[in-house]
């Protein structure tokens, strides 16, 4: 018995904290379709809290961000990893993953919530100063131009920009969210691993071995 309890420790810890509050119950109901508002029967191996990908038909309401903020987060993630000839953040629903992670940071890492809230406010401030409107109301080219200015210290260590730290936060969490999604990792990147193979051939190109 004890072994089972220990084995489920992580899942139970996560679920119990959420289930303790009304907001948490609502959150679980949205994120755990099988749970029907309650706790799943098999905690350790369910995909509790798994970020839904495609096929979610019900309208999404963010749990941490306000609808206005969430629209900005969506725009930002789609600027970092856009949809081109391949799917991007939009299809992989990276903004939803970020909302989920930042919401969940309340317990152990509340400053992540502050970084996002303050970062989004700063972004709108910079946007109004430069272009007269909040970021999400700018033309696409204006959004890209502001983000490029914010990113300048990446190329030039001597440069600085008040929005650089937030740009990095957005970029890091977008890259993480995209390339850990099924669409990003498997469909776009082409990762084929973590599976059973009957043999490992290694390099099959004579030109590399010669």
């Amino acid at each position, binding site marked *: 018995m*004890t*072994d089972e309890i*220990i*084995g489920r*420790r*992580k899942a139970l810890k*996560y679920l119990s904290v959420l289930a303790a509050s009304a907001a948490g119950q609502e959150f679980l109901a949205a994120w755990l379709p099988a749970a029907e508002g309650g706790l799943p029967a098999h905690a*350790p191996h369910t*995909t*509790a*809290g*798994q*970020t839904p*990908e495609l096929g979610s038909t019900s309208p999404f309401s963010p749990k941490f961000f306000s609808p206005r903020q969430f629209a900005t987060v969506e725009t930002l993630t789609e*600027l*970092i*990893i*856009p949809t*081109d000839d*391949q799917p*991007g953040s939009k299809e992989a629903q990276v903004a939803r*993953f970020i909302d989920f*992670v*930042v919401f*969940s*940071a309340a*317990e*152990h*890492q509340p400053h*992540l919530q502050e970084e996002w809230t303050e970062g989004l406010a700063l972004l709108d401030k910079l946007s109004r100063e430069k272009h007269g409107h909040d970021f999400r109301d700018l033309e696409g080219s204006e959004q*890209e131009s502001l*983000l490029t200015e914010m*990113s300048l210290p*990446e*190329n030039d260590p001597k440069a600085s920009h008040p929005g650089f730290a937030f740009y990095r936060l957005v*970029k890091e969490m977008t*890259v*993480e969210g995209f*390339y*850990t*999604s*099924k669409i990003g*990792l498997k469909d*776009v*990147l*082409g*990762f*084929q*691993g*973590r*599976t*059973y*193979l*009957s*043999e*490992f*051939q*290694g*390099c099959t190109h004579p030109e*590399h071995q010669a």
Partner: protein
Amino acid sequence: MGSQPVYDVIVVGSGAAGGIAAFVLATKGLSVLCLEAGRMIDPGEDFHPHKMPFDWPYRGHGKPGQYGKLPQGMGWKITEWTDHLYTIPQEDPYAVAPGSKFTWTRIRGVGGRTNVWGRSCDRFGPLDFKPKSLQDGWGDDWPVTYDEVAPYYDHVEKLIGVSGLSEGVYNTPCGQNLLPGFHARCGEWLIKHGAEKLGIKVLPLQLAVLSQNYDGRPECHYCGACNNGCDTASRFSSLDVLVPKLKKLKNFTLRTNSVVRTVLLDKDTGKARGVTYIDTHNGQEYEASAKAVVLGASMVESIRILFNSKDRNSPQGLANSSGVLGKYLMEHVAFNDIPGFFPQLAGRPTTNDDGPGEASLYIPRYYYSKDQKKFQRGFRLQFWTGCGEGPGHGASLPGFGSAYKKRIKELYPANVSIGGYGEGLAFASNYVEIDPGGLKDRYGIPQVRFHTTAEYDHAFAIRDYMYDEMERILKASGAEILPYQKVNPSPLGAVTHEAGGARMGDDPKTSVLDAWNRCHDAKNLLVVDAASFVSHPEKHTTLTIMAMAYRAADHLAEELRTGSV
């Protein structure tokens, strides 16, 4: 308590050290009680190697901040795949002296860290056992030679199954009964050719992963997720390989959830007579008795048990008449890898490069110099190439947008990084002690404090030389090097290759253990884990832990047979 059995041997720990010792002793017919601090681990329940990042709520990273601030080198270990296996530092803290750093990786469970270990299995060479007399006059020699240990390397390799048969090179012997090595990836071939242009040899990497069916276990299925536990027992773990054999023996008893607190000495003879342990189910303390006690609880835990066993006759800790218990801790000199990519591989179709979860090739030590002005001894280099479970180095490039995304995709199959381990040196000033601040673990047992730094002159000097060599090899292989920062050597423990603290030696005044891993102060008390190490060559540690444990247990069995204990 009068009806308690007296075992031939109590073995503390069930991982690489304890598991091997218990196996040798029990298969020779001795009655063995193995005490494991953690629970039984069930591969079917506990290992999830084929879960993808997107199968976890937080894509494998855990809820933000869930694991606290992890010590350097531990971030990749504790994930949603494994957080139920590892001891999480903030939940079970240990003390670190001001200005010190130590990364202590713990798994309390049957098999210990062999459940998720790195699996590299190289033998120490003749010079490695005698660094003082055969290399540079610095430090101390082991009280054993390579030739004395070699038969036990053979035994262990046969028992655990090691792939990577090679001819070996100078001071890097290879067992001759290994399974074939694994096929190399594209980038590994390019490094091999590049290094060979410089006269540097590249060899198959020895891994405790099966390249063929062996001993009732299937060949590796190449999912690459060994660090999350293996569901087919295709890599060695004490849990999957030794425990099933031991469970068939009536003279072997495994008691889980039993945290050993002290070793008990007989007041009249001064010999070990048993241990006290705490049953974690009820928190009660119990005694177990035996003719001999073998500590294989891991470097830190075995030392902690000896310190906590202090009594009137040994106020500095048991087996510590020398005063060196806890001292001379070591770790590889390690730091970040150099990232790069192969232009000739960029934009190629992606391939499944998981293989045996490690590289198939590596660069054994090639630097041997009598010139010790800069640093002593040598280093090994290893590299990772091809398509991994993530965007790779391209993601660290500046910018965003479609061009950024396309560049990541283009470089994905071309990724390469090269890193290495240098020999770590033993200093008395790097030590572990019982926390003078009175920290106790969750069972009320006094906890340790580390007093260690990896930032010593030799470490910086060998690091600088290694960075230069790694760049030289990448360039010779046609790789382009991406920007990287030179960092300070990683803390002791960060590679999970911590060793020393109860070192072997011929002189009881300067060492804790003799040439058979017996305490100088109590010959029926053995320490068979990496605490016994005298030096820390560039080679991996676990195969030598197992070979020394095998050798010590073999000798103890003979002593028990002849009644000379």
